[in-house]
């Protein structure tokens, strides 16, 4: 079973070095867990869907006011939102590390469902 509190604690670990939000949601934009500033999973899942292919590993969108990083975790999506002061390499590194960490537990939930 998914421990919501533990999931949020894990997501919270990303929120340093100008990363302001970490969010886990499914491809339909339904939220599983979020830490930090509120971000709409609906729009982020729509962004991912624009280029969604089996071989898409990661996507980074740089906007005037910040950066969004998205990566798949099992059949879900993990997104990090960072301020414009954040370094893209740091956002990518955190995204990869967190996606790798969550891959095992989230795959297990999917199997149970």
């Amino acid at each position, binding site marked *: 079973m998914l421990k919501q509190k533990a999931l949020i604690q894990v997501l919270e670990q990303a929120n340093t070095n100008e990363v302001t939000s970490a969010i886990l949601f499914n491809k339909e934009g339904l939220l599983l867990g979020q830490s930090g500033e509120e971000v*709409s999973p609906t729009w982020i899942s729509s*962004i991912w869907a624009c280029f969604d292919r089996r071989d*898409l590993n990661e*996507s980074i*969108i740089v906007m*005037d006011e*910040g950066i969004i990083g998205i990566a798949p975790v099992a059949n879900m999506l993990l997104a990090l939102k960072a301020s414009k002061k954040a370094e*893209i390499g740091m956002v990518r590194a955190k995204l990869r590390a967190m996606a790798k960490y969550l891959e095992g537990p989230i795959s297990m939930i999917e199997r149970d469902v």
Partner: protein
Amino acid sequence: MEIVRSLEDVRNSIEGVSSIFIADKDGAVVCSVGDELRQRSAIIQSHRNVVEQASRLQMGGHKASMFFFDPTQLIILSFPSFCAFFLASHQTNTGQILHSRRQLEPIISEIRAVIATETPISLDYD
């Protein structure tokens, strides 16, 4: 010709970049160098959808997008009225592509100047 040559210089300066193309705000390709891509219009359309969805996040205008596929990466740089698309191998230095914005700015300005000086074709009969 000078525009194409300058764009080719940008492509040659970054190892692993197979194709660069520049599209205007309507999605029409203005110039391209390197491999001819079959899915070019699909990429442009997908990018337009990304920009539209991203605008809803209230984070200002679009500056750049990076999509990392298994053997390739797609980097898109936004300029006023134009977008530059880079298709490169997975090993290509992404930072180098992002820094090529400075090299692209004069090329984009030149494209803008060429388009501005083009005389519109009139379809009216005298």
